[in-house]
């Protein structure tokens, strides 16, 4: 690596090398039986090369190729338009890695859980008649970043994940329930928690009810709320701020949402799936308030957009592949949220449901990301939505679509958030949201 660094120093004005090495393994149950075991080892490098303020981005998984390809890096940069960027050598604290790396995961053998998984799958299948699938996996990333400012740091990050699905279908009525969780300690693997959730929902979901198209009071579960967060992620993106395509472009320090809304971007939470010591461009991890009591405090920036807009980098430069957001050395750094937290309010969920005569509780929403999200618009399928009638959940609403605009939903339409905030995949920490006048198409 020293040789490459030296060569890049000579040939470029600025450079950055990102290296990621991932080992992962998982077991999978399909049709109530253990059916797969996957293992993968992946490794690669990407280089950002700058000369005369012109950039190129080169990716390979072959280390020996790096020095041979500097000519091509320079070549591609030379035909690009000017786009300067600043790299930084900020101090990062690597002394305590317990928020993102757990020794116990390293030594944990997934296969040791097979008999327990067998039992869970069998029990769920017997109690519910549903076809059960289960996935249990672990990963370990090694990440290293070097740049021309002298930054040279590396860390290990690991984690576990568990998902259980139950499928109960008849002609004209397919029901698929799905629960998943990210885990940071093998001792915290809690099959019962997910099983109970599935059984509870299955009871209500078995009963289909109809609902008229119209506007209703709606309670969003944390999971449903997470599906529409893409609107805010897009609105708060420093890139959309730079291009002036976000509706929030002139709203810094102005009230944009209800004063009940405080949204925090945090890359330091213990066990968070997006918890890291530094972002994928070397900016130290931090907890940052994006929206405080409804007032816009900050956009999210990568190094590129910080340079473009003369702002400070905010540590939101990550290398996620599009759509599925898996981290990869092959992805160019772009703006992405870290772990997102919305602070809870005062609502007690049970009381809120009791107060609704005719409304909806959404457990799971899908597909909102396909709407015109930059303008705040969302529209998603109610994968699991329930009718609330006279204070009780009476059955599953089939074929419903919810739509709206986040800047109205979490503003004049927001009645309150729940007191309790739930861990949603360890990347969102969200409350339930009780909103008024939400548009439902059936």
């Amino acid at each position, binding site marked *: 690596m020293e040789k490459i660094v030296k060569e890049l120093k000579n040939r470029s004005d600025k450079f950055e090398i990102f290296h990621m090495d991932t080992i992962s393994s998982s077991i999978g149950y399909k049709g109530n039986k253990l059916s797969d*075991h996957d293992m993968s080892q992946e490794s690669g490098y990407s280089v950002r090369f700058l000369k005369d303020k012109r950039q190129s981005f080169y990716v390979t998984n072959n280390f020996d190729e790096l020095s041979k390809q500097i000519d091509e890096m320079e070549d591609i940069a030379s035909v690009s338009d000017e786009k300067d960027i600043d790299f930084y050598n900020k101090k990062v604290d690597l002394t305590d890695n317990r928020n993102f790396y757990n020794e116990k995961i390293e030594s944990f053998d997934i296969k040791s859980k097979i008999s327990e998984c067998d039992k869970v799958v069998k029990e769920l299948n017997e109690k519910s008649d549903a076809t059960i699938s289960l996935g249990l996996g672990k990963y370990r990333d090694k990440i290293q970043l070097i740049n021309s400012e002298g930054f040279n740091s590396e860390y290990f990050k690991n984690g576990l994940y568990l998902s259980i699905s139950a499928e109960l279908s008849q002609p004209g009525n397919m029901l698929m329930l799905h629960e998943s969780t990210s885990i940071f300690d093998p001792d915290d693997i809690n099959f019962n928690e997910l099983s109970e959730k599935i059984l509870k929902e299955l009871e209500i979901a078995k009963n289909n009810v109809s609902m008229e198209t119209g506007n209703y009071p709606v309670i969003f579960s944390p999971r449903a709320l997470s599906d529409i967060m893409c609107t805010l992620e897009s609105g708060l993106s420093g890139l959309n701020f730079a291009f002036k395509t976000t509706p929030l472009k002139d709203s810094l320090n102005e009230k944009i949402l209800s004063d009940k809304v405080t949204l925090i971007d945090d890359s330091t939470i213990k066990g968070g799936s997006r918890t890291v010591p530094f972002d994928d461009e070397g900016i130290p991890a931090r907890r940052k308030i994006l929206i405080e009591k409804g007032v816009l405090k900050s956009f999210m920036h990568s190094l590129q957009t910080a340079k473009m807009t003369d702002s400070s980098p905010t540590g939101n430069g990550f290398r996620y*592949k599009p759509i599925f957001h898996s981290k990869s050395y092959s992805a160019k750094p772009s703006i992405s949220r870290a772990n997102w937290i919305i602070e809870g309010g005062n609502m007690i969920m049970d009381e809120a449901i009791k107060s609704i005569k005719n409304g909806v509780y959404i457990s799971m929403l899908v597909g909102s990301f396909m709407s015109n999200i930059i*303008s705040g618009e969302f*529209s998603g399928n109610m994968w699991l939505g329930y009718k609330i009638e006279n204070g009780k959940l009476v059955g599953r609403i089939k074929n419903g679509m919810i739509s709206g605009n986040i800047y109205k939903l979490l503003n004049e339409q927001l009645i309150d958030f729940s007191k309790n905030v739930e861990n949603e995949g360890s990347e969102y920490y969200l409350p339930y949201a009780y909103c008024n006048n939400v548009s439902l198409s059936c």
Partner: protein
Amino acid sequence: MKNIGTKLIKKYKNRCDYLEIREEKFETLSINFNDSMESCNRYRNGGFAIRVIDKGGVAFASVVNENMVEKAIEELIEVVPLLSDGGVKLSEEKPFVKKVTLNIKNDPRKISIKEKREIFKKYNEKIRNYSEKITTSNVSYYEKFARTLFENSEGTKTDWENMDVFGMISATAVKDNITQRGHETVGTSTDFSKLLILDKKIDEACDIAIRLTEAPQVESGTYTVILDPALGGIFVHEAFGHTAEADGIVDSEDMMKIMKIGTKLGSDKLTIFDSGLFPGSRGYLPFDSEGVPSQKTYLIKNGIVSGHLHSRITAAKMGVKSSGSARAIDFRYPPIVRMRTTCIDGGNDTLEDMLKGIKKGLYCVKSNGGTGGEMFTFTTAYAYMIEDGKITTLVRDAKLSGNLFTTLKNIDMVGNDFKIYEMGGGCGKGGQFPLPVATGSPHIRIQNVVVGGA
């Protein structure tokens, strides 16, 4: 290429029922202009994918380093007995040996990166200069060259060299806080020159973006809709294609009943097939990632379920032959059941006749993507109201949704104007994104579709 498959298969084939080794090397170039920002990225990757099947269990490993392949095989052979409850078997297929070399017109690798960049930069400038109402432009170009060597312990050996190319352009217009996009896309596996004639598409994309900012939002509700061939194709891929993938069927007693051959699922006019045989299509496949030769597979004939998309594993569970639909996007993944070029077969109706019967409806054009399931959903790029048999006002933000089973039965007219639609991006099932696929369809008319206005 390292070509270590033959040696290792010979060494290990007696220690398990089935062993396959897939070696792949690929190289991509992407050029992207996003307003005034541009990027030009080169990506090279290569590695090995190994699968072991033994006594009912299947185990998969993917490694990058050649010296880890043998170690991975040993580990898989050790682990696979734990999985024997899975009941995994392979359908019986004849050993198949074939080599397919690159057969393309206008090799984009012969054009220097500088020249290529100029082509797409010009497109970007054209969008930016179209009108002051256009605020953002986006032009993407992607080319991938790959070579895949596959060998298994049954004597199948394949060698496939291929190209995948696509371009996407979009223009964003803003008016009074309303943001709208127009976009066009083109894809090919053989002819780069298709990327050189995008000027007209750019004009259309810019024009529609501006017109959409001035158009009313569609009213939510239930409509009779006509889908244009492009949207018809997205519809069949999302609304039915994924449901016909056997890996979502074979492990569920309920799905086996619902998707049983002979079941009436759609109207009499509906015939759906999936084919790997359209030359030049991004969905073209000479053989799949299990070395099974490609085919045209009928999924629905006149409304009745007539087949499914299979890998060798799912085919064995149903007691049929594989349809050659097992695809892995690259060496990092195991093959799973995927689509190729998925089509609604042409019928006999005309667009005129479809419009005649509609008092109030929606004529929907193209799409920005969708999701499947019992309840499917997809966006429309734009739509027009249909009033008393005539196409009238342009409306924005129409998103279509529906229950698969009722919708397939509500297709009451199928056009005589079948067209293949090649698009950029790809299918994202199982995280294996973007898998190159394509679609085909004529105009189709559907009753009672739920439309959301955002």
